[in-house]
């Protein structure tokens, strides 16, 4: 360290600066932090397996292994039914990594540095959620692209597809706050996955993702009906292959609002309390 003897590069301490506030500033910080998350993802592309390879495996598995039996003989019909549902399920599963990464960041002490800076407490969490947008976009592109190759065809129009994508990604950005909350609460990043799957499996399978609920017992049908995963998959189905749409979109939007109202404050509080 030869340069040590020279004066350290400082200037007037910023003590006189007033503390700036405002949403604009927080968003700017969140974007800077989101960029950090994206750089990390680029460095470790295997972090994208759950939104690239995994969706392909689900499609292949359910269409070719179970599709013939479940779809009443027509694999194509089943693919048309299944793909919107798998997209909804993929969004829930894709959110798990967010909580795991945040938990690891805290363990490593990276967040201590952020917390010692004069930024909004929420900025690191919001930044991580913003960066997740690209993972969900990747997931949607993979499902539609690979699904197309397997024979999935849009039966509505481009506007419908765009609306379906917007709704899916919008839902993802609300649902993922559950993962953020679990990430703040869990003691290790490994346990985040366990806790999240405990929640996601009932939502994914107790739904209309794989089969229409007509053959299920009444109580289960009642659950399937209120399940946000069913509502999202029915809405995406309506928007891409036709059928009842409006009510499902409405329910999905309602769920998004509920998820945000419940889990954003919970996650922020858990983050603040985490020593």
């Amino acid at each position, binding site marked *: 360290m*030869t340069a*040590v003897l020279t004066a*350290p590069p*400082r200037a007037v301490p*910023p003590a006189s600066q007033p503390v700036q506030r405002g949403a604009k500033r927080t968003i700017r910080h969140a974007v*800077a*932090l989101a960029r950090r998350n994206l750089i*990390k993802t680029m*460095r470790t592309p295997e972090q994208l397996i759950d939104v690239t390879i995994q969706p392909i495996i689900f499609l292949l598995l359910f269409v070719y292994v179970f599709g013939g039996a479940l779809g009443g003989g027509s694999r194509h019909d089943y693919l048309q039914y299944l793909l919107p549902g798998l997209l909804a399920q993929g969004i829930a599963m894709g959110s798990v990594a967010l909580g795991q990464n945040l938990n690891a960041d805290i363990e490593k002490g990276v967040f*201590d540095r952020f917390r010692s800076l004069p930024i909004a407490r929420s900025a690191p969490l919001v930044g991580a959620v913003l960066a997740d947008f690209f993972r969900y976009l990747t997931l949607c592109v993979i499902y539609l692209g690979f699904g197309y190759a397997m024979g999935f065809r849009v039966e509505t129009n481009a506007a419908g597809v765009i609306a379906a994508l917007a709704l899916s990604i919008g839902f993802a950005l609300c649902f993922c706050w559950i993962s953020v909350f679990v990430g703040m609460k869990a003691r290790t990043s490994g346990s985040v996955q366990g806790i999240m799957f405990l929640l996601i499996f009932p939502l994914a399978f107790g739904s209309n993702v794989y089969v229409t609920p007509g053959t299920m017992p009444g109580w289960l049908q009642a659950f399937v009906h209120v399940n946000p995963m069913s509502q999202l998959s029915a809405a995406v189905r309506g928007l891409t292959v036709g059928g009842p749409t409006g009510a499902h979109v409405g329910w999905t939007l309602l769920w998004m609002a509920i998820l945000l109202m419940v889990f954003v404050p919970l996650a922020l509080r858990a983050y603040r309390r985490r020593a």
Partner: protein
Amino acid sequence: MTYAIEAEGLTKRFGKTQALAGIDLAAREGTVLGVLGPNGAGKTTAVRILATLLQADEGSARVAGYDVARQPQQVRQNIGLTGQYASVDEDLTGTQNLVLIGQLLDLPTPAAKARARELLEWFDLTEAAGRPAKTYSGGMRRRLDLAASLVGRPSVIFLDEPTTGLDPAKREDMWDVVRSLVTDGSTVLLTTQYLEEADALADEITVIDHGRVIAHDTPDGLKRIVGGQRLKVRPTDVGRLDEVHSVLAAVGDGPPESPGRGVLTVPVKDDTALGATVQRLQAAGIAVTELSLHLPSLDEVFFTLTGRHTESEEVAA
């Protein structure tokens, strides 16, 4: 007299553990306060409270003139924190780490980049600037971590065990950095497990144990209490320990003690005792495997102040 750091009666409990049992700390502006204590004494908890990462259960603290509980954002504008565990992002390069901090401190991107370049150069990391931090050596990572805490030109800097795990040469480098920060007007709170480090850097030293302050003094004052330098001799032939004892009794400033088998230590006034000892040992034809002059270890400090050894030493013994 203005204090850059002032804490009174801080307490903090984690479940059943009383991490802090009411400690007072004070650092005058432009000085280094050394907080000396063994693992688990509460050093890190105190730093986390002062750096607004943690709320104290009781007590109050002001940093850079702002209350840590009521004005945390103002405190954060004025502090830099370097944790016990290097808290840079391993996947980001040196430059990316520092630019991110700059952006979070509201520097426009070109200014954040310029500041990053400047700090990387100062910390001799220019060549490694484009490499992810996970490829850095321990010393480089510490330097990057310290650089990250200086991006905002803080007036108060917390260094939580900045040299733990560094080899002696790297430690001296870090000391030089700390000295130049203070020369420049910053106030530094440094936690350490080494009296040597506190002695080399601090204007005042607070010794804490089990969340309490057990001593507060200048380094010289503290050394007067716990003893200054000690000479340590380990003869090759344990049978000649008695002869070594009489040599040390002659050159030392007190009675020789035996901290372990086959070793003797004696307090000495200055380092001329070293030469005298070498001469006498040579004259007597006593070969030694160890002959050193050092400040009392943390354990010796504790033994003098509290009459018992630090817990980590007890476990080892």
